[in-house]
């Protein structure tokens, strides 16, 4: 068995760094000792359809409800990449040498808000509901756990997952921000109880939910992580309108809105509040993609698709569009700066990522001529009816394609209808988005497998080589080997076949009251929402 949690030699550099850190930042750290008390007020732009994290996908549920729960593992709340896995209810874990058995040891003394003690029975019941849900019980992400053969609870503090094959992303999937641990007794009586009720082990207990208005949580005095949480409570205010959210932060009626604001909104808050506002920014685990329907001519020809991506001056757009829209980073299939992301110099070798835009566009024109596409060829670009960032990116795309003689007309379709049109193939070229709740190749790349496998492959192509590369990266437990497969996948998807392409990575901007401390932005607005380490400065 490989014990991930107790490899002593691996800890030496970390210990040295920690000691060095203590020497240099010790006095500073003493000055920023967390303060107890206060109520955090957060604006939430969306509201949940139900309270069940296993069933729903919206951040409108995660932001108000995550503080009531724990998960087995979680991403390090201080890690800006959102990829470092740390313990939550599972204290330690081991992986068998064949990579198929994960054994996790649970913390002792963890209590539900009703006083009952947590045991592996609760964890098993929760994961059984997620992985093997009974009929008529929704489990939104059960497809991500098809590799689980069995879940066992050999004793009160041990939970074992047996896999059908080794899976590189399995630990990350146990850190899913949706996989809240529920109480087994409640699930046994009514498996749908959690759709309308709250009972967790998290740092805050439930107080009230007034639909369309607010959600209130208060400090759990018996929280297992002694000394936490720091806040007395929190109040989530539901506000759909972004102008109202900005006004609330500006008037100091809300401390934060965790999803993010647009650049202009950030600038207006900074101008109005000065030092009273802190701005945290990060590449977002969402990218603005372009879907190309390969069943429509001439887009079945990869030379035409390549011309579309070669026309784009991504580096200029990164500088310009980031001033007006929530896009910024020039990126490949992984969020820049995260473990599997392609470094910028290597990325520049892909079609459309080079810095010499004149050369790229000359190549694009040559390819169009070769493909027999007439000068001034017209097509429709279907855009999603949401202003940010779809509208500015759409305007930019049309302008870029004009530079190589393509005449695209933008047709904007209401957001939910847009997805239906994409699924039905009623488009030629369209905006598309790929967002993940965690930065993990398995989640980020699944969409781009062949249409027979991926129901949201809107390009409607079949590519067995790509499918094979997906499986290889999924099973490669060695990080370097996995990285190679992810790069190969990326090259085939974006350069060799140009099945689809990214314009720019979304950019998350969270301007918040300077009083809010202990919270670090990550590329996902689903992560780091437990609020256990958050505190309010005076």
């Amino acid at each position, binding site marked *: 068995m490989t014990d991930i949690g107790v490899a002593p030699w691996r800890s030496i550099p970390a210990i040295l760094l920690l000691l060095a850190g203590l020497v240099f930042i010790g006095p500073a750290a003493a000055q920023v000792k967390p303060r107890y008390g206060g109520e955090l007020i957060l604006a939430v732009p969306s509201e949940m359809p139900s309270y069940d994290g296993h069933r729903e996908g919206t951040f409108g549920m995660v932001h108000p409800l995550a503080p009531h729960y724990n998960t087995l593992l979680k991403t390090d709340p201080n890690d800006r990449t959102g990829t470092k896995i740390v313990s939550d209810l599972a204290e330690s874990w081991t992986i068998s040498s064949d990579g198929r058995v994960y054994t996790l040891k649970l913390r002792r003394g963890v209590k539900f808000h009703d006083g009952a003690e947590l045991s592996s029975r609760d964890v098993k019941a929760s994961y059984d509901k997620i992985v093997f849900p009974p009929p008529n019980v929704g489990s939104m992400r059960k497809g991500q756990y098809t590799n689980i053969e069995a879940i066992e609870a050999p004793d009160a503090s041990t939970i074992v997952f047996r896999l059908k094959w080794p899976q590189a992303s399995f630990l990350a999937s146990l850190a899913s921000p949706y996989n809240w641990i529920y109480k087994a007794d409640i699930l046994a009586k009514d498996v749908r109880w959690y759709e309308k009720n709250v009972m967790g082990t998290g740092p805050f207990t439930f107080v009230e939910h007034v639909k369309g208005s607010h959600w209130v949580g208060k400090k759990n005095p018996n929280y297992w992580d002694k000394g936490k949480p720091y806040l007395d409570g929190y109040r989530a205010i539901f506000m759909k309108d972004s102008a109202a959210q900005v006004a609330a932060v500006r008037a100091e009626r809300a401390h934060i809105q965790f999803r993010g604001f647009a650049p202009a909104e950030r600038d207006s808050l900074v101008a109005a509040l000065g030092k009273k506002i802190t701005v945290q920014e990060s590449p977002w685990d969402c990218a603005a993609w372009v879907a190309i329907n390969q069943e429509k001519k001439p887009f079945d020809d990869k030379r035409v698709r390549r011309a579309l991506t070669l026309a784009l001056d991504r580096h200029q757009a990164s500088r310009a569009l980031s001033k007006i829209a929530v896009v910024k980073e020039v990126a490949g299939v992984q969020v820049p700066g995260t473990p599997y992301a392609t470094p910028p110099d290597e990325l520049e070798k892909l079609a459309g990522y080079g810095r010499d835009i004149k050369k790229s566009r000359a190549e694009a024109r040559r390819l169009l001529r070769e493909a027999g596409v007439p000068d001034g060829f017209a097509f429709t670009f279907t855009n999603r009816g949401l202003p940010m960032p779809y509208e*500015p990116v759409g305007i930019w795309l049309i302008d870029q394609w004009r530079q190589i003689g393509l005449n695209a007309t933008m047709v904007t*379709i209401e957001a939910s209808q847009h997805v239906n049109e994409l699924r039905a193939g009623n488009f030629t070229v369209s905006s598309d988005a790929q967002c993940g709740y965690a930065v993990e190749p398995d989640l980020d790349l699944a969409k781009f497998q062949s249409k027979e496998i991926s129901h949201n492959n809107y390009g409607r192509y079949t590519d067995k080589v790509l499918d094979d590369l997906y499986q290889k990266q999924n099973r490669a437990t060695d990080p370097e080997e996995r990285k190679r497969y992810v790069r190969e996948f990326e090259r085939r998807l974006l350069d060799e076949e140009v099945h689809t392409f990214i314009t720019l990575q979304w950019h998350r901007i969270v301007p918040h009251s300077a009083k809010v401390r202990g919270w670090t932005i990550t590329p996902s607005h689903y992560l780091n929402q437990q609020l256990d380490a958050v505190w309010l400065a005076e």
Partner: protein
Amino acid sequence: MAIRPTSVTEVSGIVSDRSWLTEVGDFCRERPLGAIGAAVVVVNILVSFAANLIAPYDPLATDYGAMLARPSGAHWLGTDAFGRDVLSRIIYGSRTAMLVGFACALIGATVGTVIGVTSAYFAGRVDLLIQRVMDIFLAFPLIILALAVVSILGTGIGNVIIAIAIPMIPRAALVARSSALAIREMPYVDAARAAGYRHQRIILRHMLPNVMAPYLIMLTAYLGQAILLEASLSFLGLGVSEPTAAWGLMLRGAAVQFAEAAPWMAIFPGLAISLAVFAFNLFGDSLRDALDPRLKTQ
């Protein structure tokens, strides 16, 4: 002996033997505000036709080096969030406004007038049925009905024209019917009926020409309304799509976001809409005064 139906000139007395230039001169002298409105309308129409000759820049050309530039010698009305010249987009935007305005007003007023006159002519059950259908449409405010139609048909100039024209039809039908009810009782209509003319001929040749005055008034009034509705739909994201230059479209998105930092993005297109609608309304009101003998004060 066949009875010769009375012609439109003889009945209404609207068109006299005087030349149209004299008529225009009289209109300008008697109704200076209406004349100013008419002048702005004419300028708008000319600008929309000559947009490609007078616009200083391509309205779609982006210049990321000049994003959100203040009004200056290079860009008289500044630039938008994509560095596009605001003046050029307003000039080209007049094409969209005039196209939608004229198309909607023509379709709405014409179809409505035909329905109204037909309803008045046939009277009885036909009139009852048509009027109840019109009442259903009239129960909805103009913008709500337009929103409903555009959400069914989708966005784009063609659909916007249909969406705005449809709610105008019952309003035009109501006005035309009330005028046609009086005309229906005229002796020359009875005479035409007695002469054995077909319904179609009586409606088209004898009744419709006599509701021309209210038709023209409706046409000018609906022009302003249609421009305003198009701008409203585009502002709501349900009208024409970017990057087409359209006044309402220029007021949304980045114009709202940068309302404090770059107010010219919203002010100038807003002024263009207000001026055009005001001009059409002034002209329409004066035209109504001039064409409706009951409102003549002199």
